[in-house]
């Protein structure tokens, strides 16, 4: 291959990805219009929300390789910040969700600062424990509602307040925008210097350091962006559901659900979280409706089984199943 063409395969692939993303966005945007069935709308909204959340998780866990098992902390912080700003100070969540993202991102930095000194498993454990600490904190902090949580009163149909009662459609477009934002951010970062540095840190930290990569700052950057995106999702969720409490936004179960689509769909890939969310949300709905409800354990068995399957048989996830063969074979001969 003539030297000047090296790397154009990558550039071409990225252009293709962007086009595909735009087409998908347009298709989904149009898809939303004819659907009036509330059940399906809800399904789509939740799926899009998780697509965005998982993509946010993926930035830290997939691209940078730092597995966080406590991301519900940032989801919850985002939900609480936006809600408290709205309910106590009258700040419209349309703006508040950005503050929510900011605070959540800052929390991620705070956690990452000591935790990133630890290697892989230790870091995962630290995120798990810190997540539980957050849960306990919010559960007992009566000023923030404590165990009873906070109800978001419906004031009026409003765009900036992110309050819509007559139809779920605006929420559909809101979560679509959120998922699109997360995806676009991931696409941009993948091609940026940070994206390269993250993958180097993930693949071999010692080699990365020997090439002059500043390990801690790059991890912190991933954490801040990831936490911020997750927090934003939390704010949107709060407005959609109208009520938050530690049990609905800060538990380990939520942490699992946030990471799951990325794991199933393919960690460290652009499309993995989308694929994963598209698979996970129908599964959880099916088990809820047909297989005995969310307390029956069937959904957990399916999630656990899928995680194990993916981890062992196909670490590249569902996305790897579809695109995997091509990636490895291309360019070898």
């Amino acid at each position, binding site marked *: 291959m003539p030297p000047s063409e090296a790397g154009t395969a990558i550039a071409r692939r990225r252009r293709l990805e962007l086009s595909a993303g735009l087409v998908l966005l347009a298709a989904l945007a149009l898809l939303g219009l004819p659907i009036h069935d509330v059940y399906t709308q809800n399904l789509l909204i939740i799926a899009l929300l998780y697509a965005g959340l998982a993509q946010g998780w993926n930035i830290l*866990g997939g691209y940078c*390789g730092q*597995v966080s*098992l406590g991301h519900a902390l940032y989801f919850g912080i985002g939900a609480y910040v936006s809600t408290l700003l709205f309910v106590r100070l009258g700040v419209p969540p349309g703006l508040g969700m950005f503050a929510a993202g900011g605070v959540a991102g800052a929390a991620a930095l705070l956690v990452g600062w*000591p*935790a990133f*000194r*630890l*290697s*892989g*498993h*230790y870091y*995962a*454990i*630290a995120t*798990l*424990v810190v997540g*539980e*600490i957050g849960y*306990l904190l919010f559960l*007992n902090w009566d000023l923030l509602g404590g165990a009873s949580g906070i109800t978001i009163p419906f004031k009026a149909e409003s765009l900036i307040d992110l309050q819509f009662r007559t139809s779920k459609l605006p929420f559909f477009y809101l979560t679509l925008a959120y998922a699109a934002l997360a995806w676009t951010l991931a696409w941009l970062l993948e091609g940026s210097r940070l994206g390269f540095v993250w993958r180097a840190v*993930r*693949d071999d930290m010692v080699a990365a350091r020997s090439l002059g990569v500043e390990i801690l700052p790059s991890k912190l950057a991933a954490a801040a962006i990831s936490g911020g995106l997750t927090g934003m999702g939390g704010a949107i969720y709060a407005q959609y559901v109208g009520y938050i409490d530690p049990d609905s936004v800060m538990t*380990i179960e939520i942490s*699992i659900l946030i990471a799951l689509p990325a*794991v199933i769909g393919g*960690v*460290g890939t652009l499309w993995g979280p989308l694929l994963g969310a598209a698979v996970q949300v129908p599964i959880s709905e099916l088990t809820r409706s047909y297989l*005995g409800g969310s*307390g*029956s*354990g*069937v*959904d*957990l*068995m*399916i*999630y*656990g*089984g*899928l*995680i*194990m*399957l*993916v*981890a*062992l048989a196909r*670490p590249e996830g569902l996305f790897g199943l579809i695109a995997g063969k091509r990636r490895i074979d291309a360019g070898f001969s």
Partner: protein
Amino acid sequence: MTPALVMQVALGGLLMGLIYALVAAGLSLIFGLMDVVNFAHGELLMLAMYATFFIHRGFGLDPIVQLPIIALLLFGMGVVIYHGLIARALSVRFNRGMVQIFSTFGLAIFLRGAAQFAFGGDFRAINHSWLAGRTLRLATLSLPLPQLAAGLVCLLAFAALMAISRTEFGRALEATREDREAVALIGIDRDRIFALGWGLGCATVGCAGAMLAGFYYVSPDVGANFALIAYVTVALGGFGSLLGALVAGLIIGEVEALTALFLEPSLKQVGMFAIYLAVLLFRPRGLFGTL
């Protein structure tokens, strides 16, 4: 708040701490051996507790009598898990760390769901064992016998673990941990050692579970609580250190009991969490660990 009450609570904390120590020991053993954190550790404890409960219900066997059975059962499970799951995870080419984390994490979720599905969410308890409801009176203290027996068994288990570490098997474990590549050269089958190590780690948590079932409620979610405590305990004691697990377990048990007493029961985890954060910030390798 009398001195007698404080002493009572403190003693209870020590006894519970012994259980925490044993659970942590199993976790620490596996980690020290092959650098794998068993995220399903809590769920294995939960399964041991369920097994104890059902065997007791079906055959009337007291938890103490069941110890060898449960230990063997969990030993077998550990070996199966190693060969079926972990061995494959260790041989993955890239992203090995992530694969390891997710394989046991996925197992944990699966087991929890399976328990929910098979046994339902109700709390179970063993109410009619030999020791249930009986206490030992020492001066002003009254020590519940099931907890006392559990503490004793844990101490014995620790002694057994220390003894095992001195046998040839124990030394092989140590050698394999030190240099996984080199041991193959002196004829130690790494795979077999790892499988046995997993078996031992799980048998350890099995013993803890069997004794715990004697006085603690059994439910599909019970494992998660103990797992969290185990992580904190191992972090404090130092990953890979048996002694660390013992000392840290006692500390955590004590801190938890006293926090519940002096603050309030719903906040009993505060002390433990404070310790974890302190370890994280100031001494990541824990008391006896070599990070």
